[in-house]
């Protein structure tokens, strides 16, 4: 194994499907043992990126290497060194738990002297001891997911790719799952995960934000929260939220406003703008229930980043 056996390196990666560019000049690299999250809405190019890295798709241009192997030149080597869990449940529903584990142990060429131990470990991890002979299709979502994880890491891959691993799984199982991921990361496995759940992104050491095929920000969750917002963030709870949104956007010092649940998040140049907002709304007869400065969440960061990019894009076009 090469010295960068745990890393994923991507340089100017492009993937086009006809006229549509799914991945547009993306570059990043991961560090050994980190949980690297690829975050973005559906259709932003996350899955395409992960599929290229697993050697399931060929890039249109650019370069990507996984575990020190080039994705185009040596996909076989890559497949030996990675575990991959796809978005959709992809074990054999008509095989039993044990048969699935044995099958994937065979696929990954786990040597016969440690197969038993590895399968035992996977059963333990997934909490499926005693249910070895249940048909996989009859398991509930969380179990299926943990079994899929178990199957994907039977051969102790240095890098693990998880594509939307927690979609369709109950919250408790999701937390359990992330604990398992954390543990593997502690053991030095590099975890590459895509998700569109903002609340899951906090489990990642570093995050890459993707939007419409492009990488728009990269950093730790803290960095992203801190740096993506220029100015301060205010939370506004009031009546007639639609009217309020229209009104506050016209106030000087308000850079951005977005609906978050039953409240508005406002990006303002400084906290003092708050009093102007309150005055303007009350003049229009909108009762303000709450207006206070808050710490930006990742979602705020994401909204701010995509909004800023939208503006930049517009100015680029108007030039």
């Amino acid at each position, binding site marked *: 194994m090469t010295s960068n056996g745990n890393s994923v390196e991507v340089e100017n990666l492009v993937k086009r499907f006809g006229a549509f560019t799914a991945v547009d000049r993306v570059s990043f690299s991961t560090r050994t043992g980190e949980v690297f999250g690829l975050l973005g809405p559906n259709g932003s190019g996350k899955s395409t990126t992960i599929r290229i890295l*697993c*050697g*399931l798709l060929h890039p249109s241009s650019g370069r990507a290497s996984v575990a020190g192997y080039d994705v185009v030149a040596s996909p*076989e080597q890559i*497949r*030996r060194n*990675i575990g*991959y*869990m*796809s978005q*959709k*449940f*992809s*074990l*054999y*529903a*008509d*095989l039993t738990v044990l*048969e699935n584990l*044995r*099958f*994937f*142990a*065979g*696929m*990954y*060429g786990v040597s016969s002297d440690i197969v038993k131990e590895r399968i035992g470990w996977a059963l333990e991890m997934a909490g499926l001891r005693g249910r070895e002979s249940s048909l996989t299709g009859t398991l509930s979502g969380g179990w299926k997911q943990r079994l*899929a994880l178990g*199957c*994907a890491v039977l051969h102790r891959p240095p890098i693990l*790719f998880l594509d939307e691993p927690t979609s369709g799984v109950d919250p408790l199982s999701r937390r359990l799952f992330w604990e398992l991921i954390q543990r593997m990361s502690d053991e030095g496995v590099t975890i590459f995960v895509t998700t569109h759940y903002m609340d899951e992104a906090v489990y990642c050491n570093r995050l890459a934000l993707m939007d419409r095929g492009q990488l728009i920000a990269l950093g730790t969750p803290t960095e992203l929260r801190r740096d993506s917002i220029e100015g301060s963030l205010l939370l506004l709870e009031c009546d007639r939220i639609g009217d309020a949104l229209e009104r506050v956007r016209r106030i000087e010092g308000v850079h951005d406003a977005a609906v978050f649940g039953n409240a508005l998040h406002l990006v303002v140049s400084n906290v003092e703008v708050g009093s102007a907002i309150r005055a303007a709304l009350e003049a229009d007869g909108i009762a303000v229930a709450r207006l206070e400065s808050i710490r930006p969440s990742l979602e705020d960061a994401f909204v701010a980043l995509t909004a800023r990019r939208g503006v930049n894009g517009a100015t680029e076009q108007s030039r």
Partner: protein
Amino acid sequence: MNFRRLLAVSRKEIFQVLRDSRSLLIVLLMPLMLMTVLGYGVNLDTKHIRMFAFDREGSQQSQDLLKRFQSSEYFNLIATVRDYDALATALDNGRCQLAIVIPHDFSARLRDGRGVKVQALVDGSDSNTAQLAIGYAQGVVGAYGARVQAEFFRKSHAPSVNPSLSVDARTWFNEELESKNFIVPGVAAIVMTVVGTLLTSLTIAREWERGTMEQLISTPVTAMEIIVGKLIPYFALGMFDTAVCATIAVWWFDVPFRGSILTLTVGSGLFLTVILGLGFWISVFTKNQLAASQIGLVAAFLPSMLISGFTFPIEQIALGVRYREGLFEQ
């Protein structure tokens, strides 16, 4: 190719087939069903053609001729009638397929050595049977004519009789010209084609449909390992069905088995490999179980029924070149 991965794929496939009642039904019931339906249902032998006769003379000679029809296993003389109307009615309602009319001056003409014609009315709605009936009737009448001629010459003390030229045919491989002797082995080939194509046409499509292919191709397993690994269990099932068919053919339908079992096994194996390949190809191509099974069925059934020689050869063997044109006209 990695042997352990190959075996793992095979094992998995076996488990899946054993749990898939649909596949099991195809494997177990298809040979029995096709053997029964086609083995009993398809009979291309035309024997016992329903026949009416209108003997306008009623002489000893005319009765002699009819007796010859009666004693032939190809004809079943149902009734003799007294007028044309009765013949027409019988032909109309299908009670007879062939009607023979013997003229009123039959014996007189024979005695005088003048030519005489016997009329045959044939129900042509099933042209295949009609042609056979005409052929057989000509045979019977011709043989009778030859005997009468010999008799005539003998009585007139003619110096010598040139023996008429005739063909003495001997059929090889299927001496009795029994259609079951080639239909039943033909069914075995159809079973192999259908079972082989149907089973494999589902296998790759199922992986795509259920999303397991995505997981599979992210592992180090190669395409060749997947294909060969999947081929092994289906090959075994196909050979099992071939053996079932052969057993039914020999022990139940009494089809004579001549030749070497080894040749049959190797030949079947080669044929089956091609058939399994066809199924795989359909499966890879469609990536959809429903479409794959539909295409598989058509691709397997049509050629094996129509152009493999399953449906038509007995006519060719029985009637030879003479009726080849008639065959293509159909």
